[in-house]
């Protein structure tokens, strides 16, 4: 670790500078050109949107940069849909040839099993691609996790989470986040996650009781707990993240955003996204002294297959 023993801890701030009007403009252009090109432009539009979001995000006085291209996204999507299409096509062919009601459940189970098996692939692929196309101060991020290793961690944890109706969620996070963090790097500096599931468990129990009683309002407070749990245990290059997101803040943000969406019939979406990013990043810091000249470039190759798969499976990853 490159922390200098003598220097006192510094607080590096995050900030989001984007304004809703510019973001709305980008959405308008994307929608128009996507409609004209029967959706093909949407991959390039997505790049424009990401580029805007990244370049409006500042950390320690410098903006992030996004390096992906529309063609990459299109190719990833095409490859993933070709594979999925082939498998599902074969499956329905089987369904017709078999034509035996007793064993029909097998052909219905295959797509479901496919989604369960492909989710780790899509998540790992998305992380690999997304991080490899992100840079700050000229240094790329990377994710070096492997699908099989991740699946071994993810699948049992996800199943337990579903079986326990979400009560396992803190332990789910405490199992998958160390794997993700340890395989994520900024240049040659790996991230680390040291949270324990039990630190969040009492809050989860409380939320399970209070959320229905408060008509869902307590969900904002629980969300704040989760957010702080995730960030406060995350570290990189000897410095630790710190989130000061509060339940009251998230509640005010969530309710006003919901109202904005309803009143404008969804047109306020870009403003809502901007408000969310502004709030969350204004409450995020990295505490600790880091000698940036010690962080070396370690770029990594990554394809878009997983990203395309995530797109088709409709996975929303908060990356």
């Amino acid at each position: 670790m490159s922390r200098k023993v003598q220097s006192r801890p510094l607080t590096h701030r995050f900030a989001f500078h984007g304004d809703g009007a510019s973001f709305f403009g980008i959405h308008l252009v994307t929608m128009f050109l996507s409609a004209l090109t029967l959706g093909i432009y949407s991959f390039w539009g997505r790049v424009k949107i990401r580029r805007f979001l990244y370049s409006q995000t500042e950390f320690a006085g410098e903006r992030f940069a996004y390096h992906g291209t529309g063609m990459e996204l299109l190719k990833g999507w095409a490859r993933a849909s070709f594979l999925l299409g082939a498998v599902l096509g074969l499956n329905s062919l089987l369904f017709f040839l078999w034509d035996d009601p007793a064993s029909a459940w097998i052909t219905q189970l295959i797509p479901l099993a496919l989604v369960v098996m492909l989710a780790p692939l899509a998540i790992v692929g998305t992380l690999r691609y997304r991080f490899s196309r992100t840079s700050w101060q000229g240094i790329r991020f990377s994710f070096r996790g492997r699908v099989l290793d991740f699946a071994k961690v993810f699948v049992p944890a996800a199943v337990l989470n579903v079986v326990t109706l979400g009560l396992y969620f803190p332990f789910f996070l405490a199992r998958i986040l160390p794997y993700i963090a340890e395989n994520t790097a900024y240049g040659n500096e790996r991230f680390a996650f040291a949270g324990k599931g039990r630190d969040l468990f009492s809050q989860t129990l409380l939320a399970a009781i209070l959320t229905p009683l408060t008509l869902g309002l307590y969900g904002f407070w629980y969300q704040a707990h989760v957010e702080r749990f995730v960030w406060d245990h995350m570290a990189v290059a000897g410095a630790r993240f710190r989130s000061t997101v509060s339940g009251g803040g998230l509640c005010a943000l969530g309710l006003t955003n919901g109202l904005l969406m309803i009143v404008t019939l969804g047109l306020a979406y870009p403003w809502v996204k901007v408000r969310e990013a502004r709030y969350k990043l204004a409450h995020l810091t990295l505490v600790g002294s880091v000698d940036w000249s010690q962080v070396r470039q370690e770029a990594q190759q990554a394809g878009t297959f997983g990203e395309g798969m995530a797109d088709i499976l409709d996975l929303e990853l908060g990356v």
Partner: protein
Amino acid sequence: MQVTRASWTARYFDGQTARRQEVSLRITPGGLHFRCEDGSDHVWGFGELRQTQGRHRGEPIRLERGLEALVIAEPEFLAALAKHRRGSGIRGAQGAPKQTAIALASALGLVGLGISLYVWGIPTFVNAAAARVPVAWEDKLGAAVTAKIAPLETRNADPEANAALAAMVARLAGDAPSPYHYRVAIVEQPTVNALAAPGGHILLYRGLIARAQSPEELAGVLAHEMAHVERRHSTQAVFRELSFSAVLAALTGDARAMGQILDLAGDLGALRYNREAEREADRDGMYRIQAAAIDPRGMVRFFKELQERESGFLDVGALSTHPPTRERLAAAEALARDWQAASRETRPVLTQAQWQALKRPPTAEP
């Protein structure tokens, strides 16, 4: 305004480490010239660099060359750069004002695209698609729709009433060749309504039957619904609903919206026709009645009833999407007059016993 600055302050990232270096940048005819803290000189030819940021208000200008990057905070730098190298030589170079113009043009384009889709794109597609759908497919769709709107337990199961209804349908169908096999059900609900689902599935509501004073009136309504089936109006309505949601999903790029609206397609809301379709069904229905030698004054009487009802209540159920009753009444009266002028023969639609069976509410069953 003359932009002549000797040098610009920039931050340089060498792409090897995350170190930030403050450099003094000069624009020379040969390219961008700057010196690093270690004293090394760098020249970036205009053709090698690419602008990736600085398109939006407040966003610093970012120039990249491979893994290296230069970040300049002052927006005036772009103008100075353009002066030296005509700007266009740099890949991706673009200022902020153009963005607003492009966004505005896109908004206008979207509105234009939306209107043209709504006015002719979707109707053209819908009519073409609905005309090519096999009857078997329509039949499946219609069965699913009517099963959802009126489950079996809400339907009249009295064999006499259903036999009477079948006789009326057979009379109206006549000898004319039709790909459709009609299945008409009586729904035991007080609504004054009738509807035609794709493929020949028709629902007549008790409220409507109770209101009809003669079998000829009911035959008029049934002939109208059969015309909807023959002209595939409800199949078109389902396609219309689907294409709207498909366009919406394509615009928002959200595949989930599609699934949600697909469910909607099976609902009653999808079975709405425009006024032109209603006029067609009125006209075809009237011809059908004449072809079956049924007294067309029944239909006229029914429209009169409707008009009286409309003057008293605002709510006429699903019939409110129909053209103004006065207009339909006038059209029906004109047709009836022509027909009377030709003094054609008529035969009753149902026997008195059949009509009584049809009118009898299910509670009165033995």
